[in-house]
């Protein structure tokens, strides 16, 4: 109940709050009376009332309008939040005339006191004043006021200034200034076409950078922090990669994540990394306006706060991009409202560069006075981010941004503003190719294969190098294909050095072949090898001729050798250095066993035997005295039992769990217990040891004294 009232109140404008406040002061009243007490036009008050009734914050009783119970408590904040600070009217109010005449009788001191109470919110405490006096008998200013019912006692020594008195003191109004005029936005004129162009430029850059970064991260994923964010160094690297500053990079990365294009997963070593999602693959094949629309929409609805990245939280820890906690529930609302306010600007007007933002914040404060505290920051971020995303340009909403905001498809409107994709490049003698605009996606990918990208932006500069051409050959292109591709894609004749470069690269491409073989066969006698190769039984050996004098086989040498011998060949094995390795049948031998002489008995050994026997006996005793179903004790129980044992001076059987978690039973003579440690003589090791009390699971006194 209360939560829903507060939420409803949060969605009111300052005007609506003022009207509601006036109603709370009146308790029950007519619309006409409200119009006089709130400084606003009748129409504005009526409209506000209608909204309040719709929200059920106000209901129409037979005797007039009444506020919903609980509204009065929910009205918090100062005049900015529409709260006048007047108390509700008393049940049997004085008329304004009565109040006025009584005010006139007051002494200056009483009048000052009354004003003071009004300023302090209409409540005060009096200890000395008598509550039941006649005006004539009043001995002090407080009694003067109480006797004239300008202050009303509330029990417990507190008094209130009733609403009707406050109203008269304020000249019959609950507000001190007109409240129906939202603050003006400060604007400057700008060509709408220019706005659209600038915004579309930003939109294009955003999508291009998103694609670039995610493509890059697909092959070079940045590691994710354990907290889920992206490290400062990775952010820096991304900023450098994209030629932007870090806040801009943070926004791009955050946007990628909100649009569902970026997520974290474990890499092959199990470390978390950020990589593009499978949505990205579908997204990157769409045309640019569609791609932009998805990103912009998700940004609008996102609670993320990219603007905080790089700043520090109250504990002094820097906020990392993609940190899960970097959200605010009010952010989507702020974004939407900010853009709506911008949408209200007439075409040709944009937010003024210096004063525009503060005026926008003031307007938002009027629209939603009650929350949130951080709105000034949030609104500034929203304006800044919208510009970076290309929803706005030069401080005004772009035409297609308006469509997006209205829930329509901005694609076509944006499409006409974007540079046309080009289907050709200019190839030059310095082995570069320049695409004078955004290339068609398929073409761009092909070109990226045969050439390295040297510079990006509106245009792209590619450079051909032997390495880049080889890259294309590696994935199966032929020289003819490369030539044909260059011929079709270049609007200018392909320069001779480039043709030469391709041919020269092809010439050396594949000059060295690499393959796998288990063994090789070499012979100066070509006929012998030919004979072997054509032997009907060599099929399974997988022989292949590399050169007249060399065969290779995919059979390991251990298998190959006996088979070849079976086939009648007489091969010798060559070592790695080319020398012949001669082998003969192994003759098996075993190692002569060494006979151990019995060791001489020594004192040392005797001592060890004695120790073992003591330990065995102690173990026996422990086993004997082990309780049938020994209930484990709590540490405090153990402590009590141990203290008892120390007093008696007897041995106890303890069950002890050591560092490695293995449990054992020991018989010990407890000596002292302090600091959670038991010092005791252990029968098994015959030594004084300490035991952690919390590891002792049971203690059982033994009758047998040690």
């Amino acid at each position, binding site marked *: 109940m209360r939560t829903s009232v507060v939420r409803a109140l949060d969605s009111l404008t300052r005007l609506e709050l003022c009207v509601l406040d006036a109603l709370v002061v009146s308790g029950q009243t007519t619309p006409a009376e409200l119009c006089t007490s709130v400084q606003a036009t009748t129409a504005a008050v009526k409209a506000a009332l209608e909204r309040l009734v719709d929200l059920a914050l106000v209901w129409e009783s037979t005797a007039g309008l009444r506020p919903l119970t609980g509204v009065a408590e929910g009205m918090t904040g100062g005049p900015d939040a529409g709260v006048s600070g007047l108390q509700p009217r008393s049940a049997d109010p004085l008329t304004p005339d009565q109040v006025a005449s009584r005010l006139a009788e007051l002494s200056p001191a009483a009048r000052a006191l009354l004003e003071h109470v009004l300023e302090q919110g209409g409540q005060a405490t009096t200890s000395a004043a008598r509550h039941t006096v006649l005006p004539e008998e009043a001995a002090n200013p407080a009694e003067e006021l109480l006797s004239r019912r300008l202050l009303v006692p509330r029990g417990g020594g507190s008094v209130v200034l009733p609403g009707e008195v406050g109203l008269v003191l304020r000249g019959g109004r609950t507000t001190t200034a007109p409240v129906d005029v939202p603050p003006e936005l400060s604007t400057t004129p700008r060509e709408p076409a220019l706005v659209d162009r600038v915004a579309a430029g930003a939109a294009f850059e955003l999508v291009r950078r998103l694609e670039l970064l995610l493509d890059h991260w697909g092959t070079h994923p940045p590691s994710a922090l354990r907290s889920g964010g992206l490290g400062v160094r990775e952010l820096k690297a991304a900023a450098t990669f994209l030629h*932007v500053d870090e806040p801009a990079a943070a926004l791009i990365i955050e946007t990628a994540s909100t649009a569902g294009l970026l997520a974290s997963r474990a890499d092959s070593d199990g470390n978390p990394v950020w990589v593009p999602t499978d949505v990205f693959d579908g997204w990157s094949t769409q045309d640019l306006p569609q791609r932009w629309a998805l990103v912009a929409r998700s940004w609008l609805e996102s609670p993320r706060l990219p603007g905080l990245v790089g700043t520090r939280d109250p504990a002094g820890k820097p906020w990392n991009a993609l940190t899960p906690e970097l959200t605010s529930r009010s952010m989507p609302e702020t974004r939407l409202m900010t853009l709506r306010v911008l949408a209200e600007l007439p075409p040709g007007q944009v937010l003024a560069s210096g004063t525009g933002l503060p005026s926008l914040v003031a307007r938002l404060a009027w629209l939603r006075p009650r929350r949130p505290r951080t709105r000034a920051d949030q609104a500034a971020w929203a304006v800044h981010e919208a510009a970076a995303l290309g929803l706005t340009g030069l401080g005004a909403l772009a035409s297609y941004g308006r469509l997006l905001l209205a829930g329509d498809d901005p694609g076509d409107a944006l499409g006409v503003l974007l*540079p046309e994709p080009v289907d050709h490049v200019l190839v*030059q*003698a*310095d082995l570069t190719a320049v695409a004078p605009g955004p290339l068609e996606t398929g073409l761009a990918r092909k070109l990226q294969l045969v050439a390295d990208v040297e*510079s990006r*932006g*509106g245009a792209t500069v590619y450079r051909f190098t032997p390495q880049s051409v080889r890259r294309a050959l590696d994935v199966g292109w032929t020289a003819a294909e490369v030539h044909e591709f260059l011929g079709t894609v270049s609007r200018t004749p392909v320069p001779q050095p480039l043709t030469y470069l391709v041919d020269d690269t092809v010439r050396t491409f594949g000059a060295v072949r690499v393959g796998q073989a288990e063994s090789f066969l070499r012979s100066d006698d070509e006929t012998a090898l030919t004979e072997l190769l054509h032997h009907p039984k060599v099929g399974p050996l997988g022989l292949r001729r590399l050169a007249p004098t060399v065969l290779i086989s995919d059979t390991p040498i251990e298998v190959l050798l006996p088979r070849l011998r079976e086939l009648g060949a007489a091969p010798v094995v060559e070592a790695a250095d080319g020398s012949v390795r001669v082998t003969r049948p192994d003759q098996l031998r075993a190692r002569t066993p060494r006979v151990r002489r019995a060791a001489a008995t020594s004192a040392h050994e005797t001592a060890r035997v004695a120790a073992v026997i003591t330990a065995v006996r102690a173990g026996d005793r422990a086993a004997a005295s082990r309780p049938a179903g020994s209930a484990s004790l709590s540490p405090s129980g153990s402590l009590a039992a141990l203290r008892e044992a120390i007093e008696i001076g007897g041995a106890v059987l303890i069950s002890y769990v050591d560092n490695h978690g293995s449990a054992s039973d020991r018989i010990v003579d407890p000596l002292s217990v302090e600091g959670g440690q038991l010092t005791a003589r252990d029968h098994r090791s015959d030594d004084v040891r300490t035991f952690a009390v919390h590891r002792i699971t049971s203690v059982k006194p033994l009758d047998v004294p040690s």
Partner: protein
Amino acid sequence: MNDGPLIVQSDKTLLLEIDHEQAQACRRAIAPFAELERSPEHIHTYRLTPLGLWNARAAGHDAEQVIDTLLAFSRYAVPHALLVDVAETMARYGRLRLEKHPVHGLVLASNDRPVLEEVLRAKKIAGMLGNRVDDDTVLVHASERGNLKQALLKLGWPAEDFAGYVDGEAHPISLDESEWHLRDYQRDAAESFWHGGSGVVVLPCGAGKTLVGAAAMAHAQATTLILVTNTVSARQWKDELVRRTSLTEDEIGEYSGAVKEIRPVTIATYQVMTTRRKGVYSHLELLDARDWGLIVYDEVHLLPAPIFRMTANLQARRRIGLTATLVREDGREGDVFSLIGPKRYDAPWKDIEAQGWIAPADCVEVRVTLPTNERIVYATAEPEERYRLASCTHHKIQVVRDLVAQHPGQPTLVIGQYIEQLDELAAALDAPVIKGETPVKERQRLFEAFRTGEVGLLVVSKVANFSIDLPSAEVAIQVSGSFGSRQEEAQRLGRLLRPKSEGKSAHFYTIVSRDTVDADFAQNRQRFLAEQGYAYRIIDAEDLPAGPVS
């Protein structure tokens, strides 16, 4: 969508489509602030660098102009971050000023106190500054003027130098234009230098940089010190000055290893300036020998490091740098900017070629295949030996012979790096050779003979790379070079680019051993050529046509 010729990339390169109708206008508009990086046939690449933007600021352009230009010519939306960066970078120039204070002398002043505070706290600068005069002004030790500028540039707050120049000892110099005329671009270059105070003029080889120097001297009307790369070049400067100006032979002195004359106009070589005896530069006194009013640096891109240090102490004198390229293989462009001055004039090669002042060139790379035995020697050689082995293959001699045979009667230069190879070539071609050990007299005699046509074929080592005027050379064949030096390539091509009679085009051959480091280095150099707009061809030595071709 705008239909401009320019595409602004987010990595701060600008792509200019030169076949576009607005391309010329755009090129002129962006030239002041963007460095031309490459100019192949269709799309030229410019780059926005802090130095370039500061050069523009020094020339009086502001960030707003730069941004407006970009927006006006850009085909697509200009990345916002780039615009912000341009504005910020340009705003950094001139926040600090070096000024002459009427009472305190040289001071560093700023209207932007935080910037001043920031640089005052930099350790590298502390020792160069004196006491604080007031909140915005700090004393500077006069001797640190150059070092301070250098250090401030490194900090990213280049100072503008308003401290002015000494006039130097007056000496009348005027151009003698009775038989020739200063070309328009030469006049522009000299004037923009003079208005800027100090700085660098970038003109391609063969575009007449000497005359720009002479014009600058005519502006200065003062004693002049000219620093050149070598003795031959010094003699050429002298000849040229005698021919083109009112100066007489007696007024011009040569200060080199052989002669040490100090005259109103003195031409000194880098080498003699950087000679050290017992760790001390023994010829530093030359810098103070006279009250020089102007210092001319020829081939600024080759300026050796010690000369930079000396230049740091010459900040009160006007300085003009002449060069074909600001690209330095050692990356010390910033020192050129802070010590000699910002770029005052620049014209791309191709433009000047189109005006007919330099000859067009036909560049061909000829690939020879090493015979198997040489390939094996190469493959098993130590890495540091490989380049020499590959580039000195005997195979190249035959190819050179073939190429020479293709151009009968055309003055030909064969250029190489390795003396042995050059000797062999000279013997095989029966041509004179000029190398490091050839006496200057003999060199000059041979060059003169080549110029007059007496000698039609000359084998030269890298001594001929710089500043030797051989306008008659029509064919150059390079057989080996200093690894992949782009700057050397520019110089060698430059030998050929002096205007030819009848507008004939020059031929530039590079002979390269295939599949070796020689080819790798050649690629680097070829790329430079292509980026300068010289389309080149690659042919195999076997495919060379036999006999003469036109």
